[in-house]
């Protein structure tokens, strides 16, 4: 009896899977002029979903979105795209930073596309061959608990040079924007400098926590005095009325670290034409303005109607203009990741 029921249930699952295959292929052939675009999106759904829905309404193209899961759980859309390289189901990748996209470019996963709207983005925030284009950026910042220490560059410097860093937090550098931060430092100062800086911070007891939102919470709750985080996380604490302020993280040569979103077309994407339309849409002034007006306050990279920008973005825009070039960072990104993984596993 058990065997019969097992076979029936297993066969039903298989039949349903076949039905899904058939439905997928028949809807593609029937609606080839109205394709369903598949977008992998690493930007937070709360901000990205309304924009992608607006695109659906404007273009009449249906969009299926796969968001990145919370950093603690996700192996990342970048890794997934690498796995799917020979059989892509994704058309457009909207990454919430740039280095992962550059890694995909190096692996041959991306298809060049020069969007007309990419003209408004400065050269240093886009690939010269059009494999990807940056827009709406974040900055790496120090978040300071103002009840605990003054929010000045001198006070931060003094704290970072002290012997005890047990009240300073940084996110685990194997993931997210902290990995980009490390890669930029490696590109500018060299791997040896980075390794020595990293081990020096740890020798003095810096707290390495699971993510940028955790570093923010530690400072906002007064558990730590100072943390490395991103502007969008920092605004989360500022908007909740916590006693915090932010100042930009700078490289030893004085440059800030600006990490734009990036958008790219996938090589052999099932719907390249619809994908190009979405890229044009995302690189428009209107999308950059909406992302700037969101609670994440992303910094527009192209020209924009300044009168509509939130006041606090003016200072961020001036910091973004002092940003370090990301090109070299992409080249050492994998090397940095390999070293950090070896550090983690003790090999």
């Amino acid at each position, binding site marked *: 009896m058990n065997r019969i029921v097992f076979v029936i249930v297993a066969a039903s699952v298989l039949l349903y899977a076949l039905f899904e295959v058939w439905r997928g292929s028949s809807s593609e052939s029937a609606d080839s002029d109205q394709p369903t675009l598949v977008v992998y999106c690493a930007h937070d759904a709360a901000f990205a979903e309304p924009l992608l829905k607006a695109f659906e309404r404007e273009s009449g193209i249906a969009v299926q979105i796969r968001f990145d899961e919370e950093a603690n759980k996700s*192996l990342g859309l970048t890794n997934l795209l690498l796995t799917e390289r020979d059989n892509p189901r994704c058309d457009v990748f909207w990454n919430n930073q740039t280095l992962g996209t550059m890694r995909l470019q190096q692996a041959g996963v991306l298809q060049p596309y020069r969007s007309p709207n990419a003209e408004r983005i400065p050269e240093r925030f886009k690939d010269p061959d059009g494999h990807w284009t940056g827009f709406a950026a974040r900055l790496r910042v120090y978040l300071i608990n103002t009840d605990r220490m003054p929010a000045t560059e001198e006070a931060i410097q003094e704290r970072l040079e002290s012997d005890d860093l047990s009240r300073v937090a940084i996110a685990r550098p194997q993931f997210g924007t902290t990995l980009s931060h490390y890669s930029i430092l490696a590109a500018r100062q060299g791997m040896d400098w980075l390794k020595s800086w990293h081990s020096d911070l740890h020798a003095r007891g810096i707290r390495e926590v699971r993510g940028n939102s955790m570093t923010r919470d530690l400072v906002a709750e007064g558990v730590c005095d100072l943390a490395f985080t991103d502007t969008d996380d920092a605004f989360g604490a500022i908007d909740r009325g916590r006693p915090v302020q932010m100042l930009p993280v700078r490289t030893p040569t004085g440059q800030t670290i600006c990490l734009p979103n990036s958008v790219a077309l996938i090589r052999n994407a099932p719907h390249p034409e619809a994908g190009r339309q979405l890229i044009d849409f995302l690189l428009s002034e209107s999308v950059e303005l909406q992302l700037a007006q969101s609670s994440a306050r992303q910094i527009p990279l192209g020209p924009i109607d300044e009168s509509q920008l939130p006041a606090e973005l003016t200072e961020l825009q001036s910091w973004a203009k002092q940003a370090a070039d990301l090109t070299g960072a992409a080249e050492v990104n994998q090397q940095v990741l390999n070293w950090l993984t070896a550090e983690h596993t003790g090999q």
Partner: protein
Amino acid sequence: MIYWEVLAWSVLRAVSLSIVALPPAVAIHRQLRHHSGFGRRTLLVLSLLPLFVPDLVIGFTYRLTASRLMHSAIATELLYAGLLLFRLTAFQLAVLLLMPVSGVSDSSVHSWNLIPRRDPSWWLMAVRLRMQGPWRPMVVGVLAGVLIGLQEFETAALVQVDQHPIALSVWLFDAHAGGENLLISLRYVATTVLLQLALLVPAFRLLPKGEAADTAADSATAAVRSWTRLTPVLFFVIAGILTLVVWPVWSNAAEALIGFKVQFARGELDRRLVQVLTSLLPSALAAVLSLLAAAILLQSARRWVLACAVVPGLCGSLFISLLLLGLFQLPGFRIFYDTSLPMILGMFLFALPRAVLLAYVLRVLLPQTSRHSLTLLKTAQSKSVRQQVERLWWRFVEVRWLIAAGILTHWCFWDVAIVSNLRPVRFEPTVLRLYSEMHWGRSEDLLATTFLAAIAPVFVCAVAAAVWRAFAKRRRR
């Protein structure tokens, strides 16, 4: 911290906590055996409730506490140990309740003790008698507790702010997510699987092979029905309920209510409910399949086939999902990549070892002879006998299998790694939405949906049970 250090730390914690969890589990078990009626049922429900609180809720509730304790490694470890201890106690209690107590009577053990000779062979037999007798449920409980402690991931990941609590499951995840080669990751996992098998094999060997013994005559757990003994038991159970149920609900209820109001006002409540129910479907299918497969394997397969079948599940959901992700990229399998098949297959493999355990327990609980007698009586001439048999069949067979399927569904539903890696693009399971909302800090939405997700499966199980019973009654008429 290197692999062996993390492994040693995790094993040490799992073993210590599993041993510490045993005395309260035994004490609760004794009280349950010597009480009846409403008091017994209440104590039973309260004692087992911690098993069914989603890890996400516990981790989310205690994340901020853990961050405040960050400067003390000991305090963070103690917090995690406390959270795990209450659940291990509930788990071991479940094992004690389900395990037939003894194939060796207490009088046999006593008789052996009366033999005056005390040489090594006497001691060996004394231990063997106890292992087959009064110690058996406790040893199985401890071994299974160690397994659960080692596999625990969600709470450890959520309360791990800095280095502590050190947990192997989290360490393995970080190593792989950081870009560690899959083969090297699998090498790490292989050691862990061997360790788990080393625990499972003796546990399986200790499980009785056929008939369940009469447990009522056992005096090993005899206890005096007195409030003096009941008080510490109640104290422990209440502490567990306060920590794992009341505090998470109390501290999050206000935000959850706001979340419900907002969702209702935006007309999103029904969408969320549909999402929960849709997410439940693949989990339920995988649970039913794994339970059926477990029953078939236990009925007919050799032990080595059984061991091979449970190995993928012992590797953990992360590695099942990575292997299937690779498999469904290969020609021949690729056609099914963006369908529900990889996800359901992943859940099935993940649930199979647990399903084997549950199916085994169900088999032991209703020996073949009793089952056969019931089957024969179903065709009795007398209508009243048939009705009585129907009631017994429902109570001793169907309800138990339904509960087992419900428990497996619950485990599959709340697992993150499989759905995160293997789901089709158009399908967004509730549990992933919850993790994303936690990341974005939208705690009202998160908590409202979590409560919905925690309640809906119970409601669906209850409806399924009612439908099943009505259908079964009609069929037998």
